[in-house]
């Protein structure tokens, strides 16, 4: 991964929403879900904007005091690697926009928390298999 690499979210498979500052990402195929808080949630916001890895590090470093650029760099690239590893992020061209300014907040090592205990439940209702018309979805379910 270079500092120019940017990402897009694999929305075919993952649903995501930010609730009270916490990012929840749901893996609709596997039924796992992920949480990102604090600095990880801020990094996520920049990923959603289409910022490159380098731009994310700069934006984060500028908003956090008392931390070296290399600490931020290590934390960001570890999180990005994990997100890529889980299939949540796919490489994509950077948006080239200026990052929206982040509120000043201390930098904490970003963590991707993964939860598997609802797997049986979250894979239940295949609403992601139902097409826009909703009924009947023969074309897909019929193919052997």
């Amino acid at each position: 991964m270079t500092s120019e690499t940017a990402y897009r979210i694999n929305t075919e498979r993952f649903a995501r929403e930010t609730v009270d500052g916490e990012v929840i990402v749901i893996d609709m195929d596997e039924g796992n879900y992920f949480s990102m808080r604090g600095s990880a949630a801020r990094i996520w916001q920049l990923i959603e904007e289409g910022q490159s890895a380098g731009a994310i590090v700069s934006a984060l470093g500028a908003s956090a005091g008392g931390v070296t650029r290399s600490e931020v760099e290590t934390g960001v690239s570890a999180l990005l690697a994990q997100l890529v590893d889980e299939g949540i992020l796919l490489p994509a061209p950077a948006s080239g926009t200026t990052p929206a300014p982040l509120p000043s907040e201390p930098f904490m090592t970003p963590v991707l928390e993964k939860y598997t205990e609802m797997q049986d439940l979250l894979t239940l209702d295949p609403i992601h298999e139902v097409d826009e018309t909703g009924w009947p979805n023969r074309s897909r379910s019929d193919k052997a």
Partner: protein
Amino acid sequence: LTPDDFFTRAADAFDRAVHARGVFARVFRIGIWRVRICFAGPDLVEPLTRALDHLRLNDTDAGPADLTVLAWTGTEADQSPPEADAANWQMGHNGFIRSLSDERFAAHWMFAAGGLQMLDREGGRALFWLRESADLPYWESGAPLRFLFDAWLQDRGWLLVHGAAVGNGRGAILLVGAGGSGKSSTALACLSPHDDAGVDYLADDYVALNPEEGTVYSVYSSGKVDASSLARMPFLEPYVANAERLGQEKGLVFVHEAFPHKVRLGPLPVRAVVQPVIQPGAGCRPTPPSAILKGLAASTMLQSARPSAAVLTTLARLVSTRPTFEFNVAAGSVPEMSDLAALLPARSALTRRSVTVVVPCYNPGPYLHEALASICAQNGARQPGALDVVVVDDGSDEDISPVLRRFASRLAIRYERQVQQGPSAARNRGIALAQSEYIAFLDQDDLWPAGSLEIREAALTEHADIDVVHGRLRNLRRDEHTGATQFGPPRRSFNVGGMLFRRRVFERTGVLDERLRFSEDVDLLVRITEAGVGCRRIDDVCLYYRRHGSALTGRLQGGEGGRMHLSSWAYILKRSLDRRRT
């Protein structure tokens, strides 16, 4: 050409047809086995599966098939079986192809349709080939793949008995006799809206018998009805699939589509064998087994592609170990089902109501009647009061009391009305009013398949460590104008209507969250999982979930609605994490 060579070459032709037209597949439960039907192209899918649809399994997770049927049409040289014409083969009786049958293979020519059915006993494979799908006669659509099922079941020690069957949760009555003796019309009479004998439909012509256990299983959901029966049973008329050809054909009704909550799948123990007789009078009269056996054996053997002495022995044993009756059906009248119901064991007296059914309502229109009728079709509802039904009216503008009054003699219904607060609040009111150990939910426009509640009850009763039973559901859509009914494949969903809960679950995890606009069922199940409550998944279809334009959830499945659902999931999971973090 040996049978083996023929089968291989025909299967290769099927593969080429698949290559040209694409493959479609459906999985069904026949008896206790899984049968997968693979189609080359779509033309035979509906004609061959409509009568089996009530037995459909989830296509993807049904597990390996016990029998795989390759079904296709066409006469292109490289896509059809070699020498496919009866003139090329030595024929036996009833279309049996002697020159293509041996120890391993059994083959049958369909004279009327111009086609072939062939079973490979060792390979668990079969062929069904037709020149043209339009050639399939209506009776084949009513009882598709009959030769294959007959031969295949016989190999397993079972029989495809030529008979009709009706029953309830306590057993089935096998109706026998030659064609025209009144089997069909007797079986179909249980569908009458005026009938409250509490007897459901299994079959009108062929039924699968497990001789060892003495149980029967529905195979085809179709019913055939002639013009005079149709005149006596006008409630069938809107559902006749071949209405435009009634002059030349008997009317074909796909009972599962017309009366989804009245079809029993089995297994049900055979409690009596009854021969309808068209003669004046009414009621059942004991008759010697020998008299019954004559009709049953003759017609089963005649219909079977492989009649054998073993068939006769099996039927004789069945008939001699069951009470046997003649059932008088007066000409021109509708058979009286209560006379048949009396042959089934009475339900043991209940000391307390074991299930409370919560039915939330808001302007239900005509659907509530169907929903309540499907509650009646559950075994527990045979005596009013065996089920505790709580209808919670969430501030409807319409007066639903006339509908409730119509069920007064069959269901003990408590009616509660509240100022409109939403479906979760209505369900919670029902939970608060529940007097039973078990709680079930049924929405005003949904249906329960016959017997599905007792399957769930049995699972809870057998497993003391389980507090929630979770069945499958199938979407149901009925065209308001044509009455045509479509079912989606069985699937697992969050809908609480396909579940059964022990009441203590709600004491432990709390009730439904009335603040949620969407996914309150997901939220409940997340809390149940969080609390480590024992939950058992069963494969039986326990809910028909009606989809139509006006229902809130109907619009939420795809597109924008789907996204709203998912964002509510994130909110629910966030709250779950917060609970666990504190």
